[in-house]
Structures are given as structure tokens and as C-alpha cells.
């Protein structure tokens, strides 16, 4: 079972793709420190190259899941990419952080057609635009909705319907 721990993955990537590994977010006083789970952090625009590197060099050919998490306090979105090796073993996690106002990440769909629906869902529920995605449209909501339901600042209750000012 091939297993790569995040640390030596970070060293290997640092060697092969300079500039890809992003610095860990400084601990901001007074804010919850739950961002630090020791996983690999990647600069947004290095993502396609890192993904191809992971697939071809390390052999993690199976992209299982793309999760978008909204950290309101830190004003940023975190995208968690999870890869698996077909011979089994633990996952390989790559995280990308983008600012909350007009977040955009290069799409993985050209390399993994499987990423298509996950990215459309992240776009629909969080508003993260994936540049290079062939058919980036809302997947659940109707197209005219101007708002992204899963964001932390999306109004949960309230009688006033989003968008109508009356």
C-alpha cells in the first residue's frame, strides 16, 4: 500500500515544482485555530500542474472528491482535493485557499472528467468559479438565483426572500 505522508510530499513538491507549496496561514489572535490540520497547501494557480504531477509521477490516478469549505472568520474558501492510489492505501489530500470575494480556481475537468459535477456543485453552492470548465452552470439551483446557498452568510431564516427588496 503506497503511502505518502504530507510532510515528505511537501518536500518532494518543493523540490520538483518550486513555488507550488503555499505558506501555512498565520494563527490570527482571537480567531479559532481550526485551519491547521497539517495537510498540503497549494497555491491556486499551481493546482493543474500539481494534480497532473500527482497523477503521473506518484500514481494517484483516482480523484475521489472535491470539497469546498467556507471559513467566514478568515474570509476565505478552502478547496480540499482528495486523491487515491488504485493499489489502495490512504488518501492524498491537497488543499487550496482562495479569498472569499470572487474566488476562482483553475478547473481540473480537462484532466479528470470526473471532477466536472463536483466543480459545478462548488460553483452553484459556494460561487467558486473554475476557469476552463467546459459547462460551468448551476447544478441544483435555478439559473436566475443570485446567491450561493451554502455560504455561511446566506440568510438561513427570515421571511424576506433573497433578492426581492419589497
Amino acid at each position, binding site marked *: 500500500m503506497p503511502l505518502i505522508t504530507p510532510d515528505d510530499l511537501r518536500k518532494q513538491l518543493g523540490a520538483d515544482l518550486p513555488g507550488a507549496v503555499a505558506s501555512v496561514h498565520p494563527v490570527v489572535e482571537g480567531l*479559532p*485555530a481550526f485551519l491547521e490540520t497539517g495537510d498540503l497547501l497549494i497555491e491556486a494557480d499551481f493546482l493543474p500542474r500539481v494534480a497532473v504531477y500527482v497523477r503521473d509521477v506518484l500514481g494517484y490516478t483516482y480523484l475521489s472528491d472535491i470539497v469546498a469549505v467556507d471559513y467566514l472568520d478568515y474570509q476565505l474558501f478552502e478547496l480540499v482535493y482528495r486523491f487515491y492510489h*488504485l*493499489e*489502495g492505501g490512504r488518501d492524498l489530500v491537497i488543499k487550496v485557499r482562495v479569498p472569499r470575494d470572487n474566488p476562482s480556481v483553475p478547473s481540473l475537468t480537462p484532466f479528470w472528467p470526473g471532477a466536472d459535477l463536483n466543480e459545478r456543485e462548488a460553483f452553484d453552492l459556494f460561487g467558486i468559479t473554475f476557469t476552463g470548465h467546459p459547462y460551468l452552470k448551476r447544478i441544483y439551483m435555478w439559473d436566475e438565483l443570485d446567491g450561493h446557498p451554502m455560504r455561511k452568510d446566506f440568510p438561513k431564516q427570515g421571511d424576506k426572500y433573497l433578492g426581492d427588496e419589497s
Partner: protein
Amino acid sequence: MNIPIERGKVVTVARGQSTSVAGFSLSKGLGVVFRHWRRAWFEKQHQNVPATASESAPNAGNDKSKPTAFVTLEDMSKSYGTFTVEYPEQRIKLPEAYRNMPVLLYDDETGHELCTSCFQCQRICPPQVIHMTQAKDPASGKPVPSVAEFIIEYDACMSCGFCAEVCPFDAIKMDHEFELSTHDHPSLTVYKRDLNRPVSYYESIAPGFWAEARERAYKKLATNMKRRPGAIGIAPHLTEKITAAQAQAAQAAAAQAPAAKAPAKKAAAPRAADTAAAPTDKEAKLAAIRARNAAQKGGSAPAAGTAADAPLPTDKEAKLAAIRARNAAKKGGSTPAAETSAEESPPTDDKAARLAAIRARNAAKKGDATPSEESDQPAAETPPANDKAARLAAIRARNAAQKATEAAEQAADSATSTPEAPASSSEEGKPLDEKAARLAEIRARNAARKKGDQE
């Protein structure tokens, strides 16, 4: 890519051979269907067992269902013969664990409802469909451990069974009645009057579960009944009958000395007699507790503190405590309102936590002077109103204290309070985040100081 597989091998499914003459395998398929057709005429998967009395009227609670002809028993190994159950006439015997909609239980003899409106089920219910208000003692306006109005919105309830699991008094149980379709939608908001079921009914549908819960339920009911003045806790439709019975029992019992009545451990019939006397000593007990708290506020350790670890107080001691409480109340004056009205409005999570912390502190001060950790399990699990809960809080406080002292040493040496608190998710719970961690340090420090000056 060759993927290694332990304890098993990779099997490639064999695609059908193309040698067989066309039409032969089609006839194999026909053969299978014909065998099913032939055997469907005389084999049945469900045997009809004439329904015995209890089974045939499982949902006799409401008179809608007509008695069934038979109940079917299923033979799982059969894979031929008809498996239809002709529903109204035949019914499958519902298993004990079957859960459809929650219902409230009341004791048959005394008519007292088991529910003490501790709001546990309202808080745990995922779709938030349970609503209740606590009963008030008409005379003194104080809250009484019984429920005034209990509403469940049957149309939104998803019968997940959490309320039945969480209820500490076994007052709410999942019913077996599934024929609930009605024409008018409002009738699906069911009030307490329609929710009540006698305990004997629940015993008939889930004998195993009730056997386990019986002991615990009745012990708690006994204590609660003592603290319910007048006919408050009695199931609505039984109130007239019970109060009438109480009236004559009261005159008969008036002659004997109050002490002769032993606290009814089991729901024995005579208990109905002493309910008349119950309201008086209930106020006494309430007053006693209030007095004690007031006394602690005042700083003097009243003699009543020893009453805390006495066995279940008999009425006599309760009356003594009442007298002491009355004069302490006059001296103490302000009793912390927050303490008793804890259950007034349904607390949100953090308010409950804070309340629990205060209660734990008082109990701890009373037991022995070590601060207790903020216990996660909200102590409101058993209402502090009576002594037993206080004793429990004390015990918890004591072993919480040792934990706190260890946490204090650790907190002292590790500079940043990294989240990897001691792995064991034991009772006292880990310091959750910086704020919680800092609180723990302060408490640990003064715990260490107090232990120091005690030796």
C-alpha cells in the same frame, strides 16, 4: 495495473457462452417462471396464525382498528409460493422495536403521568416538533415536575425514536400504531389528551423494553409524584375519578399519623391515599432546599447540609428541613431566582451549560471545597430540586476536581494549549478552545491553592 487483494481473489465474471442454440436459454427462463407459477398455487411464505387476544388488538389504544383475523408468521428460507399479505385481514406481527409515532405514558393505578417536562426530548428532536410547558403549582406559582401541555406535530415527526431514547423518565415511548391517515390536517398536531397511553398498553406492545425500564421509571415516578401538589400530574381524562378517590382516602387517612405511610416504592394502591398528604410535605421539601441554598449564600454551613447525604428523607425530616428552611429564608432573603427557574423556558445549549456550571459550583462548595470542572453533561439531567441530584453533583464535582488538578499541572508546563487534550473522552471533557482552556487554568490554579491550604 495489478491490484493486490488479500484474503480473496479477483474474479472475472464469465460472460454467457455463445455456443448454446438460440432459444434454449430462453426456454430455461420460461422454465424458472413456470416453476414459480406452479408452486404459487399451493405454497405460501406467510402462515396464517389465528391472532391471540394481545396480538390481534395491538393498537387497541384507539378504537379505529377492527380486530384482525390472523397474524402471519414468516418463513424466511422459502423462495417459492405467494408472499402477499392481504393487509386488512392478515397482519404481520409487529416486532417489539417497531417505532412509529411517540406517545406519552401514564401509570394505570395512580393516573400520574410519567413526564416531568424536563425538555430533554424537545431539545434532542431533530425536526423540533415537540413543544411542552411545565405545570405550575396553582397555590405557590412555583413550577412542578409535571407537564401542563404537551404537543407533538405528528405530520412533521419522522419517528426517529430519539425522544424515547433520551427521556430519563421513560415517559415518552414509540407507539406501534401506523393507521394514522386522517382527512383534516390540523388533527395531526396532537395534544397531551390524545398522546396519553396507559403503561399497560405499552407493556402489551413492547413487553421486553418495558421490563427493563419498569424499575427505573417507577422509582422516578414515585419521587416525582411526591412533588406534585394536588391533582396536577394526573392524566387529564382521569383527573375527576382520581381526585374523588383521593377525597375519601384523605378523610380515612386523616386519623392515622402521617409517619405511618411508608414511601411507596412500587405503585401500590395505598399510595393514592397519601397523595393528599403529599402536597404539604412537597412544599416543605421545596422550602428546605431553598433554605439551604439561601444559607450557603449567607456563608454559614447550616446543619441541614448533613441532610444531603441522608438516605431518602422521610416525611418527618422533610418537615424539620421545612421549618429550618422557613427561618433561613427569612434570614437569607434573596434566593437566587436563576436556580429554580432553570427549566422555565427551554434553555439553549450554552445557557444550560452555564446553569450547570453554577449548580455544580454550589454542590461542590457544599460537598467539599474543591471547584468542579465545567461538566459537559449538563447537570440538568436530573432536576437539582431534590437532594439526590445534589448528592450526584457533589460526587461528580469531587472526581472532576482530581481531573482539574492534573489538567492544572499539564496546563502549567505546556505553553500553548494545543488542542490535543488528554485523549480519554471521559466525564470532564477536554478544554475545548482557547477560551475554555484559559477557564480551566484559572480553576486549576485556585483548586491547587485551596488543596494547599487544606493540608
